[in-house]
């Protein structure tokens, strides 16, 4: 019982952290949409295990259908941005069926006329891509806005990285075979013991700690 309680307590922390980080990321795309007066904004997470990009957060158009959808990591504009680490701004794209090559158009039926896409970098590794779709057409893009987008991308990259870490922690907890879970179980059993056995257990652990130092 105590074992389950401890796991539940840790899990509650991890789950809460995942949920809070997901909300942070959602707030990030909402703000991105707001500061650029755009119709939509979204974040792709790069999934290393499958080498794919996953829609992780969407604000505005397409928000209901896109979350969780996946595309190969090196196709489309998001793929180019991920691979090259270069931000890109496109506007007034001629309406053409093949512009459907854009990921959001393909998945949601919403065809943007323009977008800004910027890599989200954590150290030397890209963790994803931030998209801002359909700014007002009359506003000419400037290098100042490009810098703002870059600054904003730093913040979004941190949100995405936190979410990634929370998910890894959760995965560790769910995988009963890892060392961390074995330690959690040991701690739970110790917690459940009565003195003097509990006291002896703590002394044993302290001795082990000295031994491993």
């Amino acid at each position, binding site marked *: 019982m105590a074992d389950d309680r401890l796991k539940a307590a840790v899990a509650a922390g991890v789950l809460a952290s995942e949920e809070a980080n997901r909300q942070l990321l959602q707030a990030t795309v909402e703000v991105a949409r707001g500061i650029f007066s755009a119709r939509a904004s979204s974040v792709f997470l790069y999934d290393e295990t499958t080498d794919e990009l996953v829609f992780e957060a969407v604000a505005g158009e397409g928000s209901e259908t896109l979350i969780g959808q996946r595309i190969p990591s090196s196709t489309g504009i998001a793929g180019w941005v991920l691979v090259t680490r270069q*931000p890109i701004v496109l506007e007034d*794209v001629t309406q053409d069926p*093949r512009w459907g090559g854009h990921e959001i158009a393909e998945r949601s039926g919403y065809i943007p006329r323009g977008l800004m896409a910027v*890599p989200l970098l954590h150290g*030397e590794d890209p963790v994803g891509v931030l998209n801002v779709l359909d700014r007002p057409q009359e506003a000419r893009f400037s290098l100042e806005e490009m810098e703002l987008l870059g600054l904003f991308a730093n913040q979004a990259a941190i949100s995405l990285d936190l979410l990634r870490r929370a998910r890894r922690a959760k995965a560790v907890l769910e995988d009963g075979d890892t060392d961390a879970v074995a330690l959690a179980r040991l701690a739970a059993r110790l917690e459940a013991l009565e003195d003097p056995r509990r006291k002896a257990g703590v002394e044993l652990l302290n001795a082990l700690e000295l031994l491993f130092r």
Partner: protein
Amino acid sequence: MSDPAPGRVLPAWSLPAGSAESLELPTAWPGRVTREWAWGDSTGKGVRVCILDSGVERGHPLVGELEGAVAVEVGEDDEVTVVEDAEGDLCGHGTACAGIVRSIAPDCTLFSVRVLGAGFTGSGTALLGGLRWAVEQGFQVINMSLSTTKSQFAGMLHEVADAAYFRRTVLVASAHNMPVESYPWRFSSVISVGSHEEPDPLTYFYNPNPPVEFFARGVDVEVAWLGGARARSTGNSFATPHMSGICALVLGQHPELTPFQLKSTLYLTASNVEGAGG
């Protein structure tokens, strides 16, 4: 040391007494280098430009014909193979770059080397393999609107960039406009390019505060896009093909220039250098 016999091949790293004549330059360098001297009415004819990118859409009205197109594939064990490219452009970006080069140097030859499509995990290997292949082919200009942040590739990219420099292949590479370490644009053997906001495609500035050496048009540029379409675009990756196009113009006029001489010519004809004459 005796005087060398006429026609004798000398080691490149020393110059024996009395042999300075052997270093005569094929072109007389003028007292004042102007744009008129640098490219005059050149159209880039005879210059082979390689677009190392996402592929290029053949026959796009703003691109025209290609000399050829290959794709770089990465197998297991990171083995690189270069095959005929049947897919064209996977994103639109390579087509945009090709169109910009074409708009400046209408008669140059364009060749596409696609390094996108190997997945993210294979992307650094594909970039390095594609660049190595392009240098071996002897293109005069290689447009690289891309870079990698993976430090494990820095050393190898540096070697390829230096090899290109000594083989008279000019690498024109996009600088990052985000504060990250990336390659190969930081190497001094390449021509690195950032953006300015002026609308003239032939306006470019020399930057005395490297690592970015030149600023070219990179804001609100009309470009070719997938399916014969057009778009307006912004980013250093669109400034870079402007410099590649200008390099093609200069090399069309003076094919014998080394990358060092070409870079010097670009400096002397930059819009912020007094006496640029244009």
